[in-house]
């Protein structure tokens, strides 16, 4: 339906809590971000390392996390090969932030719909020659 950049701009429009966000692949490559390139790469690298290390804590497969500090929270959500990391201020409404991040991941992962093909112009029937003489 939409690409990563559009999905992120929709996220920052609908969520007043999200300060910055980056979409990245499971191998850490930045797909889209609300930040300049260098900082987007740093955030993606930190979020990837955090998610991988946190994944070793539990026995199951980690799908999302919130790291809450006194200065703000860092959220990381995974859907397949795509991840999103987002920063918020202190004490955010976690449920809402997770909901918005998952919706953004779904939007970013959805394949764009193919444009409908224009209908071929209807062939005109050749006019029948008028037999009458005028």
């Amino acid at each position, binding site marked *: 339906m939409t690409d990563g950049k559009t999905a992120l701009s929709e996220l920052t429009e609908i969520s007043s809590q999200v300060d*910055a966000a980056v979409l990245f692949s499971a191998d850490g490559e930045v797909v889209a971000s609300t930040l300049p390139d260098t*900082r987007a790469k740093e955030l993606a690298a*930190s979020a990837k390392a*955090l998610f991988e290390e946190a994944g070793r*804590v539990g026995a199951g497969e980690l*799908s999302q*996390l919130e790291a809450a500090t006194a*200065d703000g929270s*860092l959220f990381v959500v995974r859907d397949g090969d795509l991840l999103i990391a987002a920063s918020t201020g202190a004490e955010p409404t976690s449920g809402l932030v997770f909901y918005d991040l998952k919706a953004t991941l779904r939007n970013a992962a959805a394949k764009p719909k193919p444009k409908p093909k224009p209908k071929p112009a209807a062939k005109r029937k050749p006019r029948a020659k008028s037999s009458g003489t005028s």
Partner: protein
Amino acid sequence: MGRRSLFALGLAAGSLLGIGLYARRGRARERIDLYFADGSMSSLDGGSSEASRLLAQARDGLRAARP
């Protein structure tokens, strides 16, 4: 002891208690919440060694996210 001294003592004790409670509240806020694909959830308190390591990484990310 005069009334003024008692008032000053009470004010000082109240301030100390308030500072202590505020600092404790701030520490309690630091945590890592982990949500797993099977629907289970685990919360690591900021005081644990595992959470401290993860929180340090989260702070790196937050620094990058903020100007």
